[in-house]
C-alpha cells in the first residue's frame, strides 16, 4: 500500500492531548508518524490539509439500521456510507432489528455484513435479553466471543429488577458491558415529549425526568452491587448525570453516553408539532439542556453518540402522537459538536475526545487516537465551514433529521479507514 502523508493540518488528538499543526504519515493502514514536519518517503501520496482539522475517525456507539428486516429504513451499507460522510470510522450497531440480534449466528451476520458492505468498521451490539423481551438473558458470553462490543436492551429498560440484577451479575462474570436506556416504562407511559408547561400547552402527554432518574438509579445500585460494568445510554437529565458522577467517584464501573441532539435541541424545537424532533428520551427544557452541556464540559460523560435512528416518511408524516420516535444523526454528529464548541460550551479537543478516545477507552479499542501504531482511521474536517443542513442532501436512506434547515459549523471533507480513503467530499 502506498504511504500517505497529510501535511499542515491542525491535529486534534485528545488521547495524547495534542492540538497543534503538524503532519501525519500513514503506512500499511497504521499511523507511522505524527510530527510537526515529516519528510515524505519516495512514492508517498501527499495531501495538503492546511486549514483543516485532522482528528481520529469518530466512534459512534449507538447506530440503528433496518438490517435485517426493515431495509426500507436503512441498510448496513447505506448507514455506513452516511457514517463516513460524517467522519465516523467505527460504529456499533444496535440489536433491535428483525430478527433481534440475540444469538451468535446473528452477531456473526452483522459482523460479516459490516465487513462486506461497510466502508467503516462495524461492531455488533448483542441483545441483552432474548428477543429484547426483558425476560430471559441472551447468550452474553458466547456473543461476546463472537465479537459483540456490548449488550443492550434496545429502547427499553428491564422492567423486573430481579431479572436485571441476575443479568448484571452474570454479565460481570463474562466481562460483558451492559447498556441500558434508563426509562421506567410505567412512568413514561404514553408520553411523547418532555413533560412540562409546553407539553401541557400543546396538549401532548409528557415524559418527566423521574422516568429516567428512577430507572437509572435502580440500575446503578444493582450494577454497583454486582460489580458489573453499566453503560447508561442516552442520558438526558442532569439529575441522573450527577448520580452517575457520584457512582464513578465511589469507584463503580458506571459510564454514560449522551446523544448529540440532546445537547443541541430543547423542547421548544418541537415547535409546531415537528415530528423530526420527536425522540426518546425527549428534548428537554433549555435549563436541562444547559445543565447537560455543563456536565459534558466537566467530564461526566464518556461518549457522545449520534443515536442514529432512521425512520422513513411514512413513520414521521403523521400526527405528533402517532409518529415514531427517532432521529437520523450520523452526518450531523461531528458538525453538531463543532457548532456547540464554537458556541463556547467546550473546546474543540474536548468535543473530539467525546467522539473518539472517550468511546474507544470504554472498550479498550486501539482506534480513536493518533498514536503511532494505531489503526489509520482519520477524519479531516473544516472547522469553520458554515453550512445549512438540508435533509434532501443527506446520504442516509432515511433523512429524518431534526437538523434540517439548521445552520451548522464544521464539515467533514475526508475520511480514512485503515489507511484507505473511504470518503471525499465533492
Amino acid at each position, binding site marked *: 500500500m502506498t504511504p500517505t502523508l497529510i501535511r499542515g493540518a491542525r491535529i486534534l488528538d485528545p488521547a495524547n492531548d495534542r492540538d497543534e499543526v503538524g503532519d501525519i504519515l500513514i503506512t500499511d493502514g497504521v499511523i507511522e508518524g505524527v510530527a510537526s514536519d515529516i519528510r515524505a518517503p519516495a512514492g508517498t501520496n501527499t495531501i495538503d490539509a492546511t486549514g483543516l482539522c485532522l482528528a481520529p475517525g469518530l466512534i459512534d456507539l449507538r447506530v440503528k439500521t433496518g438490517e435485517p428486516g426493515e431495509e426500507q429504513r436503512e441498510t448496513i451499507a447505506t448507514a455506513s456510507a452516511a457514517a463516513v460522510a460524517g467522519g465516523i470510522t467505527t460504529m456499533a450497531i444496535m440489536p433491535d432489528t428483525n430478527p433481534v440480534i440475540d444469538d451468535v449466528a446473528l452477531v456473526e451476520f452483522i459482523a460479516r455484513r459490516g465487513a462486506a458492505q461497510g466502508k467503516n468498521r462495524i461492531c455488533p451490539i448483542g441483545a441483552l435479553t432474548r428477543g429484547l423481551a426483558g425476560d430471559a438473558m441472551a447468550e452474553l458470553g458466547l456473543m461476546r466471543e463472537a465479537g459483540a462490543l456490548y449488550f443492550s436492551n434496545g429502547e427499553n429498560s428491564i422492567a423486573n429488577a430481579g*431479572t436485571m440484577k441476575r443479568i448484571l*451479575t452474570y454479565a460481570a*462474570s463474562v466481562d460483558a458491558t451492559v447498556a441500558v436506556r434508563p426509562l421506567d416504562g410505567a412512568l413514561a407511559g404514553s408520553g411523547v415529549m418532555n413533560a412540562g408547561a409546553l407539553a401541557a400547552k400543546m396538549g401532548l402527554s409528557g415524559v418527566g425526568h423521574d422516568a429516567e432518574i428512577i430507572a437509572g438509579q435502580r440500575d446503578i445500585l444493582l450494577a454497583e452491587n454486582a460489580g458489573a460494568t453499566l453503560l447508561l445510554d442516552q442520558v438526558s437529565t442532569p439529575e441522573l448525570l450527577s448520580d452517575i458522577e457520584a457512582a464513578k467517584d465511589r469507584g463503580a464501573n458506571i459510564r454514560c453516553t449522551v446523544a448529540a441532539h440532546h445537547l443541541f435541541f430543547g423542547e421548544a424545537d418541537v415547535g409546531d408539532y415537528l415530528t423530526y424532533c420527536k425522540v426518546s428520551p425527549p428534548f428537554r427544557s433549555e435549563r436541562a439542556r444547559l445543565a447537560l452541556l455543563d456536565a459534558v464540559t466537566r467530564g461526566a460523560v464518556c461518549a457522545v453518540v449520534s443515536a442514529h435512528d432512521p425512520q422513513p416518511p411514512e413513520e414521521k408524516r403523521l400526527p405528533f402522537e402517532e409518529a415514531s420516535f427517532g432521529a437520523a444523526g450520523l452526518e450531523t454528529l461531528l458538525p453538531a459538536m463543532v457548532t456547540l464548541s464554537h458556541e463556547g460550551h467546550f473546546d474543540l479537543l474536548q468535543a473530539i475526545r467525546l467522539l473518539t478516545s472517550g468511546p474507544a477507552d470504554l472498550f479498550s479499542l486501539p482506534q480513536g487516537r493518533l498514536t503511532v501504531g494505531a489503526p489509520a482511521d482519520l477524519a479531516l474536517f473544516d472547522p469553520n465551514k458554515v453550512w445549512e443542513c438540508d435533509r434532501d442532501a443527506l446520504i442516509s436512506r432515511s433523512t429524518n433529521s431534526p437538523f434540517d434547515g439548521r445552520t451548522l459549523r464544521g464539515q467533514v471533507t475526508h475520511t480514512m479507514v485503515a489507511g484507505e480513503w473511504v470518503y471525499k467530499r465533492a
Partner: protein
Amino acid sequence: MPATDDLHEFPHRHLLGIDGLSSKDINLLLDLAEDYADITRKAKRPDAALAGKVVVNLFFENSTRTQSSFEIAAKRLGADVINMPVAASSVKKGETLIDTAVTLNAMRPDALVIRHSASGGVKLLSRKVDCAVINAGDGTHEHPTQALLDVLTIRRNMGKLKGLTVVICGDIAHSRVARSTTLALTALGAKVRLVAPKTLMPKGTESWGADQATGDFDAALEGADVVMMLRLQLERMDGAYLPSRREYFRFYGLTADRLCLAKENALVMHPGPMNRGIEIESAIADGDQSVITEQVEMGVAVREAVLHVLAGRAS
C-alpha cells in the same frame, strides 16, 4: 467385622450436617465406612450390626438414588427398612411436618433417614423424635452423607486429604453438596476452590472454609488434584440464572481440554445424576480419571457406617 468400640466415641446423636463435626468425628466415620467397603468388596456375609433395628426412610423429596443407597446400607446391616412414601401420603392430606414426626416417633423406629426440600427441615424434625436422625439432604443446606462419600472416595484414591486442592464447579448457590463437601474437605485439611458464574455463586463462601470463589474455571483448574462437577438444575438454565446450556458448557463444562489444565491424573467426580454434555463431557465422565461410580459405591459404605454408629447404639 469393624470394631464397634467406635460407636461410643461419636459424640452426636444425629447426623444433621458436617457443620459441627470435628475432624476426629469425620475420620471415625470414614474409617468405619472403609471397613464396610472392603467387607462388601470381599463379598462377605452381611454384618448384622443392626439386626432387629428399624430404619425409616422419610423422603419428602423424591430421590431414588439416595433412598436406595440408604436402604441397601441398612439392609446389609440387617435392619428392617420401611420406606415411607411421604411425598404421596399423609403430608398430601395436610398433616404438618411436626405431626408426621410425632406419629412416626410413636412407632419407635431406631433411625429416621430424612430428606426435605426446606433448609432446616430435617433439624426441625430431629427435635421432635427420640431416635437418631440422619439428614439425607435438606433444601440447599446440607447433605452430610454425600460429603462423607466424596471425601472417602478422594482419600482412597489419593491416600490423603491434607494439602489437596479440590475444585468444585457448578451451581454452588443451590447446592447442598457444595456446602457439605466443602466443610468436610476443609475440616480435613484440603483446599477448596469454588467455581460458578456469579449468578450461581452465593456471597460469603469463605465462611464454609473455601479458599477461593471464582468465575474463572480454567484458572481454578491449575494445580487441582480433584475436579468435582455439580449437577445443574435445568430449569435454571433457561435465561434466568444462565443464558443457555451451550453457553454454560462453553465456560463451565468439563471437557478433555479443560481437564488437561488440572494436575495429571486429577480425579473427576460428580454426585450424580449427570447432565452429560452440559456440565461434563461424556468421554470424561466415563474416562480413566473418573471415580464417579466409586462415589456411588462409597455412598453405601458411608451410610452403613453412619447407620451403624447412630442406630447401633443400645436404646
